[in-house]
């Protein structure tokens, strides 16, 4: 049996996440409980919404307590106001935040950066969700009344209250007996998506640059996963030649040598054409580099591949240029001139870690 209160609870969660009733947002307090998991202390966020009342200012009030101590001794901070404020419980115990699911994380990201929801490509061809009548609820519109269940409920009540006579089986439902169909949105069929991460691992890309790429790709992953159930990720690294690697290798490889970006794009095209038919897949290539391409000729080749083979097939092509100790290259400017105006292209220059957020916003802000 699903509990009645789940509806209230869902509504509360929606308010906390800012989906509905934004007028209450300013009353949300980030309370927390301190618990223990193994050896570690953990904080469990318990947001509350405080409806305003006429009431006394807290600080001017104080209260009465019980226990040892002299006048002037401090109370431990958590004690003053029960259930709110800081959770300082002395030093040396570290607090881990728990209970944020990736889904919630994505929500928070979306909220902070005001990202639009992604509109899957080819909406007219792929039906993304369907309504299905799955459940039964004690309230609902009359047109959805479930007669059989209503009568069953009435019968149950009459038997329980002893007013049912098997010899004269008359069942009269009252208002509380009524049952209604409720529906759920079911994604059918699932939309598929693939992210192709490409990274330049030439000698000029240091650890710091890779860290930036790692953080950024984590957030992109999280956000896309929220929108696509079956998200696949492929990883390509390149210097003068490109190869496909697993996730682990992608983030930890350090190569040396020159940079031929076209090699990565060719490999990406191969992947797309052999495995991800653009009609069935939402495709997101992300490319990170410090922008120091080998030659102008290769850059021209890259632009050519992008224009003729990648851009027509993908939802969004993103290029992030990470600033390296050797300065920033020319590639992003070249792209800007040639394809910057295309609507499924997002270009961003990432100077340092602080620039990650605006960069994510550039990449995902288009809602494609």
């Amino acid at each position, binding site marked *: 049996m699903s509990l009645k209160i789940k509806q209230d609870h869902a509504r*509360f969660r929606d308010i906390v996440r800012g989906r509905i009733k934004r007028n209450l947002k300013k009353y949300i307090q980030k309370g927390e409980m301190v618990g223990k998991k193994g050896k570690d202390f953990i904080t469990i966020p318990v947001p509350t919404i405080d409806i*305003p009342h*006429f*009431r006394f200012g807290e600080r001017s009030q104080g209260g009465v*307590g019980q226990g040892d101590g002299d*006048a002037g001794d401090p*109370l431990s*901070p958590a004690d003053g106001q029960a259930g709110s404020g800081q959770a300082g419980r002395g030093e040396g115990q570290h607090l881990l935040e728990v209970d944020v699911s990736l889904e919630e994380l994505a929500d928070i990201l979306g909220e902070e950066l005001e990202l639009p929801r992604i509109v899957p490509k080819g909406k007219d061809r792929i039906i993304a969700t369907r309504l299905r009548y799955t459940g039964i609820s004690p309230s609902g519109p009359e047109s959805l009344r479930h007669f059989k269940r209503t009568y069953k409920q009435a019968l149950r009540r009459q038997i329980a209250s002893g007013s049912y006579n098997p010899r004269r089986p008359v069942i009269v439902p009252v208002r509380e007996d009524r049952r209604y169909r409720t529906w759920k949105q079911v994604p059918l069929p699932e939309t598929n998506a693939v992210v192709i991460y490409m990274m330049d691992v030439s000698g000029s890309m240091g650890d710091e640059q890779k860290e930036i790429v790692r953080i950024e790709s984590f957030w992109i992953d999280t956000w896309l996963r929220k929108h696509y159930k079956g998200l696949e990720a492929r990883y390509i690294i390149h210097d003068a030649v490109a190869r496909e690697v697993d996730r682990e290798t992608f983030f930890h490889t350090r190569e040396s040598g020159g940079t031929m970006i076209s090699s990565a794009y060719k490999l990406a095209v191969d992947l797309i054409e052999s495995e991800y038919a653009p009609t069935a897949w939402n495709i997101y290539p992300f490319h990170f580099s410090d922008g120091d391409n080998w030659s102008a000729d290769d850059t021209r080749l890259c632009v050519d591949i992008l224009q003729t083979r990648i851009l027509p097939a993908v939802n969004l092509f993103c290029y992030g240029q990470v600033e390296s100790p050797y300065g920033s290259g020319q590639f992003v400017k070249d792209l800007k001139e040639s394809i910057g105006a295309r609507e499924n292209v997002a270009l961003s220059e990432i100077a340092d870690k602080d620039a990650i957020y605006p960069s994510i916003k550039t990449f995902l802000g288009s809602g494609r």
Partner: protein
Amino acid sequence: MDKHTQLPARLYDIRKRVEGFAREYGLDFFDTIFEVLGFDEINMVAAYGGFPNRYPHWRFGMEYERLSKGYEYGLSKIYEMVINNDPSYAYLLESNMDVDQKLVMAHVFGHVDFFKNNFMFRHTNRKMMDAMANHATRVRRYQDKLGVEMVEDFIDRTLSLENLIDYQSPYVKRRPDRAAADAEAEDARQVAKGFETEREYMRTYINPPAFLEAQQRRLDEEAARKKKFPERPERDVLLFLLENAPLERWEHDVLSIIREEAYYFAPQGQTKIMNEGWATYWHSKIMTEKALDASEIIDYADHHSGTLATHPGQLNPYKLGVELWRDVEDRWNKGRFGKEYDDCDSFEERRRWDKKLGLGRQKIFEVRKHCNDVTFIDEFLSLEFCLDQKLFTFGYNEKHQRWEIMEREFKKVKEKLLHMLTNFGQPLIAVEDGNFENRGELYLVHKHDGVDLKLDYARDTLRNVQSLWRRPVNLHSKVEGRGMLFRYDGKEHTDRRAEL
């Protein structure tokens, strides 16, 4: 039909035994129905304030989340819950050990005895279970008709005002009876006399009836203008709004639901210390003297001490309550009361004072009938008790940026405690004028007793009052010793200095 048969046989037997002990001790309670619930259900019921069915509102979901998370992470668990109703309903957590269930039952009978006999509860609806369900149905119906958002927004706004009721009103008569009031008004009514004349036959010529009538009308109008509205300050602001605000029918109904529930829950808040103390007193008495098996003692001691644990910054009503009850019983057993005892200055003599009166039990039963938390503390919290229990006051030290223990002096502690409890710890706010400055504005006055209001909340609450009253609303209060008039006219807030 026996309503108790749904209990498993094992619990049914425990229940019968514990109930027997409770009756032996003289507890007098409504028939009590115990229901066994899983943790999810018990969290739901607790979130609903003890009822299985409430109107839909997100704040119950909020409470549910808090309780569920506390339970999931093993931080808290609900032991007992009981509602003031006839028959009374109490809930047992399925996964509890038998010794816990025993303890809970004994505790519950204490509560129900208190509900039944304490004067504060005399006016509460003993069929609240049904009333709550009806409220739920009514609100659901409005939501079906008008949409969830609209009804919920209105509930949000009225909940913001739910403490603006008159906590004393069920026990005193604030307004004169309609008939008596009319008669009084009739007596005070000025009758138009017209011009004076000594010649009887000239009277109708000098004061023709039409002239007299006109004069009478003028007098009546003048009286009506002078008459204040409301005639005396109305502390039941919700009632005033119900009677005078331009509400839609559904709004009127929802507001009256919120008000009714606020009045129902109020006595529980006003007797928290007494009630929890009373229940704890009885469960420990019943358990230790009668119901406990030898094998259960460790678990019982563990759970009992958990209930009574104290933390420096919080007052545990269970602990304070039970200690005070025991103190009262002890004092009346030993005759430590009255003029003779009060006048005794010798510390040694007071310590050894024992007249062997044995009046303790009788006294506590009496007290549970006639007191609430305020009078209980006022009457029975003694210097010795205060020292014994290590009570202190605390406050926020701006200089050190922290909460600190302020004082241990008996007088100060008692004063602070009483202040916290008076009017349920809520500011006293009343409607002074429903036609402020003759412009149909609402004028509320906060009776300032040394503690300022939380201003941002006060402004937001004022906004909610305005949304019901429709015309501008004003609130007079004091901020740092100076009188202030807060005003919200539906568009913006203005504050100005104003003394009463």
